[in-house]
């Protein structure tokens, strides 16, 4: 038995959470150090597995697709086992998660209230995310999925911040009764939405499990089962809706702006950066991987809704005056690009989609880290009152600009490569017109991102704020790391795409494309 490297990556944060809960009482520094070390272990190991993955073997031998494989039977009669393994897609996303949580620990260095519990929950959540990306057993996959979703409720409900939404319009009465705008509302909304999605996923998983003979939850074994086309269609729809809620598909996306806006910095980073990717990953891995006919059948739906997401999200982002809402809606828009890439069912598009998951994850992580910094220093998220921050916080301004440029797909940032590949895939897909909403989306993104940059960092200094300090100490670690990843992967996309390609090509080869 080799060193169980994926398990160590996955459980290291959890061990960190336990250590934080049991040993680090009343020592905020120890809490942070333990968190940094345990997530650091995950980060280092995820780089190691990323580098040592044998691409050649994966390309030639179908059995070697999932490497670093571990399997421990849990409930043999039901075919449940702890089965983990990683291919190119998983590895890239594991790397993303590691980067985001590692920087997230630094970005939330200044959390003061109940920091012990905060970090413990955060680390628990990360274990769930890692677990989803590496598990090859649907049952365990689902457990990790829930583990990744539920701590969010507490994290937002306790450490979040409330905003204000004025009840207006024909449904104003409903707003008055639901407490919209408060962090409790946001936390509840997010949790209910995601559990709503989970129900669909669970149904889909059981449908596959039962119709395959109720012998195994293993993805590898279920892949080999030729399911009935009609079943495939229904199950794909269930997966699409279930994972799609987490991926923020229109019109089931409204939890995301409220949730992201209310969540504390590291949680927003993790949530927009990684958790939404969980949804897209689920659609690709479980949806396309296990029910390929359903995926082909409903590509038009996935792609069409993705187009709505792109344009609608960008326009909504433009209309916001709250900084966090802008970023949250931009995530909705970019998740549209991710799903559009996947829906093209082409090599370029799917590579673009996976790369977009990575690029957007890092970028939005950077955004939320920066917004957190600005919020912490200015105690405001209201864009119209801001201005001229570039003078007092040049570092934040520069990092925000880089993030923004990546968001609008400027070359030499990771966002460009992802968008370009998506475009290329779109025009080669069954529905070439998808190209136009996607391109339009990048233009709209350019408008709202640069408007925000101009409104916050440019122009004469705002009279409402004085002596805003730039990022300092641990916060720099987060910013530099994230900016570096964006630029490096933008200039040398082969770093990621070679690996991704080795995973997407076999996936696409299994699709019954016309």
């Amino acid at each position, binding site marked *: 038995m080799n060193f169980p490297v994926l398990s160590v990556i996955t459980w290291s944060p959890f061990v960190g959470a336990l250590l934080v809960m049991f040993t680090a009482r009343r020592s905020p520094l120890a809490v942070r150090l333990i968190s940094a070390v345990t997530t650091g272990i995950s980060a280092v190991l995820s780089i190691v597995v990323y580098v040592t993955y044998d691409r050649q073997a994966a390309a030639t031998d179908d059995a070697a697709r999932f490497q670093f494989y571990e399997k421990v039977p849990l409930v043999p009669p039901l075919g449940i086992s702890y089965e983990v393994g990683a291919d190119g897609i998983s590895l890239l996303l594991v790397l993303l998660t590691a980067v985001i949580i590692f920087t997230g620990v630094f970005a939330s260095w200044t959390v003061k209230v109940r920091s012990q519990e905060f970090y413990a929950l955060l680390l628990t959540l990360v274990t769930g995310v890692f677990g989803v990306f590496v598990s090859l057993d649907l049952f365990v996959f689902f457990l990790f999925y829930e583990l990744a979703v539920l701590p969010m409720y507490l994290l937002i409900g306790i450490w979040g911040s409330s905003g204000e939404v004025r009840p207006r319009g024909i449904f104003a009465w409903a707003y008055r009764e639901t407490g919209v705008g408060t962090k409790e509302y946001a936390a509840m909304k997010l949790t209910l939405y995601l559990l709503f999605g989970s129900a669909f996923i669970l149904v889909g998983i059981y449908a596959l499990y039962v119709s395959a003979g109720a012998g195994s939850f293993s993805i590898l074994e279920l892949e080999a089962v030729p399911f009935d086309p009609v079943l495939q269609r229904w199950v794909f729809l269930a997966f699409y809706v279930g994972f799609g809620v987490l991926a923020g598909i229109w019109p089931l996306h409204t939890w995301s702006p409220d949730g992201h806006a209310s969540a504390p910095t590291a949680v927003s980073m993790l949530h927009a950066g990684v958790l939404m990717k969980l949804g897209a990953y689920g659609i690709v891995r479980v949806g396309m991987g296990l029910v390929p006919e359903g995926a082909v059948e409903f590509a038009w739906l996935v792609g069409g809704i993705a187009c709505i997401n792109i344009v609608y999200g960008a326009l909504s982002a433009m209309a916001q005056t709250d900084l966090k809402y802008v970023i949250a809606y931009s995530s909705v828009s970019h998740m549209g690009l991710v799903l559009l890439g996947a829906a093209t069912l082409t090599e370029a598009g799917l590579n673009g989609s996976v790369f977009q998951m990575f690029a957007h994850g890092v970028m939005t992580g950077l955004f939320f880290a920066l917004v957190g910094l600005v919020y912490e220093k200015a105690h405001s998220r209201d864009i119209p009152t801001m201005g001229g921050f570039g003078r007092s916080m040049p570092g934040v301004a520069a990092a925000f600009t880089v993030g923004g440029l990546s968001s609008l797909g400027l070359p030499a940032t990771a966002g460009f490569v992802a968008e370009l590949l998506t475009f290329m895939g779109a025009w080669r897909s069954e529905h070439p017109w998808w190209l136009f909403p996607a391109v339009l989306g990048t233009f709209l993104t350019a408008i709202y991102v640069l408007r925000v940059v101009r409104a916050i960092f440019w122009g004469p*200094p705002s009279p409402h704020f004085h002596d805003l300090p730039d990022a300092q100490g641990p916060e720099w670690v987060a910013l530099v790391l994230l900016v570096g990843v964006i630029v490096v992967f933008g200039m040398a*996309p082969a770093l990621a795409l070679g690996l991704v390609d080795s995973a997407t090509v076999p996936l696409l080869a299994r699709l019954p494309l016309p």
Partner: protein
Amino acid sequence: MSLPLAVLALPFVSFVLLAVVPPLRRAGRVAGGVSIAATAVAFVCALATWQGHLEGEQLVPWIPGDAGPMATVGLLVDPITNAMLVLVTLVSLLIQIYSLAYLSDEPSPALGRYYTYQSLFAFSMLGLVLSPTFLQMFIFWELVGLCSYLLIGFWYQRPAAARAAVKAFWITKLGDLGFVTGIVMLWAATGTFEFSTLFRMGAAGQLPAESLGLILFLIYLGAVGKSAQFPLHVWLPDAMEGPTPVSALIHAATMVTAGVFMVTRAQPLFALVPDLVWLIGTVGAFTALLAASMACVEHDIKRVLAYSTVSQLGYMMAAAGAGAADAGFFHLLTHGVFKALLFLAAGSVIHAVGTNDMFRMGRLWHGLPHTGIVFIVGTLALAGVWPLAGFFSKESILAAVWGAGRTGTFAVLALTAFLTAFYMFRAVFLTFFGHAHAGGHPHEAPWPMRGPLWILAILTLVLGLAFLASPPPAVEAHHGPGWLGPFSLGLAAAGLALAWAMYQQRAIAPASFSRVLAPIDFAARRRYGIDALYLGLYKGLILGFSKLIGLIDRYLVDGLVNVFSALSLRSGDRLRRIQSGQVHDYVYGVAFGVLLVVVFAHWWAR
């Protein structure tokens, strides 16, 4: 290929150094030194490349794919590239030296930032001209756009600069949408971005005939945005909010010519679609005239030059539209030299008097003789006066257009040539002669600024003389009829004379002149309403629509969610009344449950 690679790498190294080593950047002048040194060495390398006729192509995979790389990057060196390399490095070098004095009042960190951007720009522009693929060209195309954005917004605390920067970015981005769509479609049809492969396929007739027109049109849109062609020209005059050296480098000599360069580069492809070539020429000529007319009523000296740049870019495009991309490219090179000269001279004037408004200048000749001389040299070159460099390139364009039988275009260009002479001499008379306005005693700029001016002025003259001695291929290729030379000189003279009469002698009142041409004057002063149209579209359509979507999302899509939520809360509120807290009631409930089960077992389960 190591020499061209060095040309590309040096500014990049300088940029990376300045970007990731904050102390170096914050040192200001030291950062300038780093950047200037890198550019100087790059210039030498570019000269060596040019002289050594090092030509060739090299490609490496960039985006991997299952069946070979999906996209490649690399270096392509050919005569066009060589000429551009020399121009870009030379003008960059001179302007970076000039800026050292021009921006000497800036705080050190800001100066360091400026040179960081300058290095990035030099790198991006060189990468653009060295591109062997459409994709790489697009990458650097966007990067120079980014530099333009950052440098226009260099004084980011000025609202006007901030506005101009985003406007420039958005408008060029609009064209770039076409560019990227076009190359993606081209890739989908052919599977490659490489020029050489595409040219080969084009020559062999393997390109999809029916969609090629659309694809190339979309790609041309990128050039429309970048090279400020009608109707996307509106950003360039506003871009003058940036520091003057930036205007000289980016918005006159190099970046804005990228569109012309691209059309020249992809000439073998464009030649396959004659209708599109016709369109390019027509739009170019129209842009030339439109911009010239707006330059005639402008008060701001930099904006006059900006409109003149738009106008000259139109000229170049018109040449390309006449199937003479080489003539256009030739004009690009000479224009790069003397327009940089004009901008830098204008910068020197602004430096001396502290205003951009020509009507508040006058009689500067006495205070600024050096600047005056070089400005007039540049003006003469721009007006196309023999034997300066501009004469030859302009001549070859007119000859090419006449030779292509496009009389209408020729007439428009001739009128533009007349207007060019007029508005440029208008600027000369208003600035250097006439009546003194500005208080104080304007004095000549320091030598770091004067040096580049003289170098460029001498270059303008020497190039002209060199062309006289040995006509370049573009001039050789396009011989106009014999009357063409005198004719265009006559146009220039007429423009000079009119400007002299109106602004020096005051023999003709400008007011009475504008009364005669009232509608045009009215429209030109309002920029033909194009800016207002864009503003209206932006505010009304995009922002308005986004507001609407924002409200729909908040109050309709999310509203429905909240209605569900509120209804659940309400029904929960009703249902909880069942929970009376009375144990007896619960026992009744259990009893009824048992009854229900039993009844069910009785009647339905049978």
